């Protein structure tokens, strides 16, 4: 094989960019491994004098129950989001009715509201629903504000699932629910992966709703606790960064494990309208 300079150049560019993309993570990691005294802005690139996981331990100790809260909220919220989006997408592609495009438009438009502007009515509404101040309140909030994006993704995804399958099942005697349960749902995995990743990440990373809806530290999600690690007083950057890494870990794991399916799901039509 002849060596092609153009290929070498391509790899070089890719590697340089990879390094640039990893730079922030390097800083997070290195700072997290330092002691408080070592943390100085002008020494941020230096490796820690010795490996110490104290900051991680400390961060973890102050975050662990909140991480559990996050999971308790994110998992049901993501699952429900997926189901709701999937059902909406199913109806909007396979059971179209007069005005279904308008309905889709109305649902989708919700994606674009600035969330800071709805906090006050949100709290009142959640109170009326008796879920304010609980993780379920957060679940409800995230599921509802997730409807636009999940519906969009599933609608685009289902547009590429042959309608003949649904028709064949209709003729075979299945009802609207039967078709969903036995035909459409089992074929939805790539769509679910995309939606799950998307929702998991954005719900997990949300701070605004979390801090607004839950005030009891015992039930607050990790993002709020992480934020509280930086008081108005001294910021222990090493612990802060360690905490940031710990908090980001679940989403990173999700991306690394499911990244392949994410791309595949996107290729299968999710998000390409």
């Amino acid at each position: 094989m002849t060596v092609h300079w153009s290929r070498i150049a391509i790899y070089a560019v890719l590697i340089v960019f990879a390094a640039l993309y990893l730079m922030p993570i390097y800083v997070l990691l290195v700072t997290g491994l330092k002691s408080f005294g070592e943390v100085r802005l002008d020494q941020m690139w230096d490796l820690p004098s010795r490996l110490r996981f104290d900051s991680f331990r400390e961060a973890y100790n102050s975050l662990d129950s909140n991480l559990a809260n996050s999971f308790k909220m994110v998992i049901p919220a993501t699952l429900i989001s997926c189901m709701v989006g999937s059902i909406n997408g199913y109806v909007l592609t396979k059971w179209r009715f007069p005005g279904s495009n308008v309905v889709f438009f109305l649902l989708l438009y919700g994606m674009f509201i600035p969330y800071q502007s709805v906090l006050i009515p949100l709290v009142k509404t959640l109170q009326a629903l008796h879920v304010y101040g609980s993780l379920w309140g957060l679940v409800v909030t995230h599921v509802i504000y997730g409807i636009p994006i999940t519906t969009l993704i599933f609608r685009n995804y289902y547009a590429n699932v042959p309608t003949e399958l649904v028709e064949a099942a209709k003729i075979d005697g299945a009802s609207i629910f039967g078709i969903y349960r036995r035909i459409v749902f089992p074929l939805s995995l790539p769509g679910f992966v995309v939606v799950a990743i998307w929702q998991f990440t954005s719900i997990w990373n949300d701070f605004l709703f979390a801090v607004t809806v839950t005030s009891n530290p015992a039930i607050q999600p990790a993002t709020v606790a992480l934020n509280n690690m930086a008081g108005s007083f001294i910021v222990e950057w090493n612990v802060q960064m360690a905490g940031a890494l710990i908090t980001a870990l679940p989403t990173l794991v999700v991306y690394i494990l499911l990244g392949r399916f994410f791309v595949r799901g996107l290729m299968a039509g999710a998000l390409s309208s």
Partner: protein
Amino acid sequence: MARVVYEHVTKRFGDVTAVNDLSLEIEDKEFLVLVGPSGCGKSTVIRLLAGLEPLTTGNIYIGDRLVNDLPARDRDIAMVFQSYALYPHMSVFDNMAFGLRMRGTPKDETRRRVLEAAQALEIESLLKRRPAQLSGGQRQRVALGRAIVREPLVFLFDEPLSNLDAKLRVQTRAELTKLHGRLQTTFIYVTHDQVEAMTMATRIAVLKDGLLHQVGTPEELYFRPDNIFVASFIGSPAMNFVPGTLTGTAEEMTLDAGAWHIALPASRSRQLAPFTNSEVVVGIRPEDIHDPDFLPARVRGCAIQARVDVTEMMGNEKFLHLVSGTEKVLARVDPRTRARAGQDIKLMLDIDHLHVFDPKTEAAIAKIEIPEELREPPSA
């Protein structure tokens, strides 16, 4: 076990009228083939019957039941799709069993019926596979099997062979014909391939732009097309059309069509006498143009001149792409012909197989007879 009746059925999609005032009775146990060019509304016709689209106006009956508002699942029909629409996440067995399960058939019976159908279609060995692991032909059989196990009142087929290669298509065609004989059920079959229509149908319905153009047996459509469209659509390669004029009277009519000057025999002259001095369109099938050296004995020929443009060897026959006057004409002759590209040659038209149409209405004004040997007894 069911007649199907379309009564003034119309279906519109927005501005498009996909089916236009269709009235059609399909007898029990018939093998009706709907043909027509792409977009003519064939699929819509059977999708209306299946309950996959709501009617705009009109009525549809299955047996004696008006089914206009019946959901698909209650119509007791089965359908084979062009794409087969096999459930990709289910095994072949589950694909075939799905319809029975949905109807709550007992497990034992489901199993029995699936196995039976699989046996009949010789796909028992595939029952555990997924559709993705099957070849095109195997998928086609599974789709067929899925329809058969249901034992429905009516079978619908939407171009089920168009994804198969030529060889498999020939074979499956014959199998479908046998299946129909065995099941003794009404088949309604959509295709745009007139060969399929000719070979399998007990009756063919020709559709164009949502309108029904002619319904009849394959022989009727081949020999006695109602209009230019049917004439051109049935038969392959397609009929040649040449504009011309009729002159003369009673026993001695003459047909002038481009470079052709054809004296008609008495029998045909009589038939065409009313149209003397009219413009007409003459239709002649490629197989009715013969090389004089290999003229079959039964044929009454009439000589014409033409230049050979291209020749195509087909093994047991040869296509001659001819130019006669300004008209392009295709002839399908004995392969031993000595005609070569570029030559001017003499050819014989089968004078008893000249079709004549009105150029304005496009309707046939003089039909030919179906050769006696081909008139099958009604219930062959």
